């Protein structure tokens, strides 16, 4: 549905995108994952069609003939862009008129979306008086009022607490099941895991792409997890042969070569000799493990 081919974007001499290529298939929940400044918003704006690449192409094939393609796309910007001094219902009514929907259709569609987002009891509340999660859900409802085929969202989970974030994702999955292709950006790995496919963007380039499982399966190393209450365990593992050692609270993750089959017993022995009581097990790499490695090696490329 979307095809991005060697897309570059320069703002003056700042390179926001440096040759990005990927495809988004119809029906996916597609993640554009990366830190601030990676080029996520630039890329999303190109997909929506409000920004052109400096070179290369970005095509979103929606609506058949392409002439009214923007009408077939819904966009939720990173910043809340609805009217804070209008109620939920007034905001939706306004958008339905902008989309040229007839009143009866607009009313039934609004009701359907308010039910889907759980906002139905709050129809008369001013948008400015909604919590962050509710605002986000209202913005989604407004963006899909006209039943677009493609919904593009710029960091819908940022600044939102985990309960609201889970609600928002449940709304996205339901829209997706109803036939809407979703493209969503996020800087967070736990949201990246929720996508069916994703690209990891770093300094304007794609460093990884695929399903979360494919990406984790490609990770060439093994992760050994050490759980202990002994402080400074990370430092005391400095002389254990490994690719990296990092601490997460009282948990330490040790990255070892994938071919090193007896690293686990050696690590156990090492800890025992150091007098550190710990649980050690081999765990599946997370997307974060993969992206840390990719970002570190990507630094040389950039």
């Amino acid at each position, binding site marked *: 549905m979307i095809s991005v081919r060697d897309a570059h974007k320069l703002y003056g001499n700042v390179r926001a995108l440096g040759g990005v290529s990927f495809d988004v298939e119809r029906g996916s929940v597609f993640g554009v994952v990366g*830190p*601030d400044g990676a080029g996520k918003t630039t890329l999303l704006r190109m997909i929506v069609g409000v920004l052109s690449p400096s070179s290369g192409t970005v095509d979103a094939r929606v609506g058949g003939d392409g002439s009214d393609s923007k009408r077939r796309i819904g966009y939720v910007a990173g910043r809340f862009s609805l009217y804070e001094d209008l109620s939920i219902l007034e905001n939706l009514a306004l958008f339905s008129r902008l989309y040229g929907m007839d009143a009866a259709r607009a009313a039934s569609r609004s009701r359907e979306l308010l039910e889907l987002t759980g906002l139905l009891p709050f129809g008369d509340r001013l948008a400015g008086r909604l919590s962050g999660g509710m605002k986000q859900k209202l913005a989604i409802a407004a963006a899909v009022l006209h039943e677009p085929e493609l919904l593009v969202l710029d960091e819908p989970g940022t600044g939102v607490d985990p309960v609201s974030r889970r609600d928002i994702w449940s709304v996205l*999955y339901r829209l997706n099941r109803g036939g809407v292709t979703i493209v969503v950006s996020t*800087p967070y790995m*736990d949201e990246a895991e929720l*996508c*069916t496919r994703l690209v990891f963007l770093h300094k304007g380039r794609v460093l990884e792409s695929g*399903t979360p499982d494919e990406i984790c399966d490609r990770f060439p190393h093994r992760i050994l997890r050490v759980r202990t209450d002994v402080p*400074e365990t990370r430092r005391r593992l400095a002389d254990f042969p490994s690719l990296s050692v*990092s601490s997460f609270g009282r948990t330490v993750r040790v990255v070892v070569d994938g071919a090193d089959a007896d690293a686990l017993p050696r690590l156990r022995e090492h800890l025992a000799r150091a007098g550190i009581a710990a649980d050690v097990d081999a765990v599946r790499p997370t997307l974060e493990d993969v992206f840390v490695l990719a970002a570190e090696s990507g630094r040389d490329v950039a």
Partner: protein
Amino acid sequence: MKDAEAAVSTVGLTRDFGSFRAVDGVNLDIPRGAIFGFLGPNGSGKTTTIRMLCGLLRPSSGSGRVVGCDIAREGEAIRRRIGYMSQKFSLYDDLTVAENLTFYAGMYGLANAKRRERVDAMIALADLRGRERTLTGALAGGVRQRLALACAIVHEPEMIFLDEPTSGVDPAARRRFWETIADLADGGATIMASTHFMDEAEHCTSLGLMYAGKMLISGSPDALKRELTVAAGKIWQARVPDSIGFLDRIRAFVSGGILDAYIFGASVRVLACGARLPADVAGAAAWEEREPTLEDVFVHHVRSSAGMEGQRCDA
């Protein structure tokens, strides 16, 4: 004696704004050297609590001590001994790296020799040797963030408050930032980080979850996950073709025992009471047990505390 004292201890800390109770009887006991993650939705009372701990806001009732000082009477002394780094780093873009550090050192009243020594130590900590004269505005996000931390701790505070410190920073820089934080904690500083992000929460040695002014739960990330398994149940994951249809069917036909069910990428996850899935659910897919995430813990506790239906296991 002083070292044995907790970095933060509060008893029944409460703050009312008119008839609204923003913070409701919070008891905290954070040992020195801890990295305490302060979780909770917006408006749950985290910021009000932190303002009281910094001595900026008087409690309506209850009491507390931070780094050995009384929060109601010794706010001034507390503020000299804490560091604060916000999400929006307050750095001066048109000053150089060294100038920003010198400015903050001066603001905290460090005298000449000490000031030079600390600025130098912070340049090393932020790994900015050789870039002392770079304009701050020209630094990349991850580097700015290290400089912001260096500025916030140039006066060697015993306690450091962080507000979503690694929001939007790339994973490698984020991991590196938390290593520095772990080193500072190993060196005896106490860290209190407020965040919405479970990625960040995983880096803490202990966590507290606040909701509607109350501290719902606290403990280490591992302990909270284990506690969820004991108090509620296990997390199961399965890959099914039509995950939403599947979840709707589960919700419709299951008699009880499912506390939470949600889509996880191409899979579904459920939080089920006890050690096993109810028989009708167990037979519906090829389930694998998964470790609960901190998000599972957070969502479960907030929902049960909000009195949402279906959050209890009947014996």
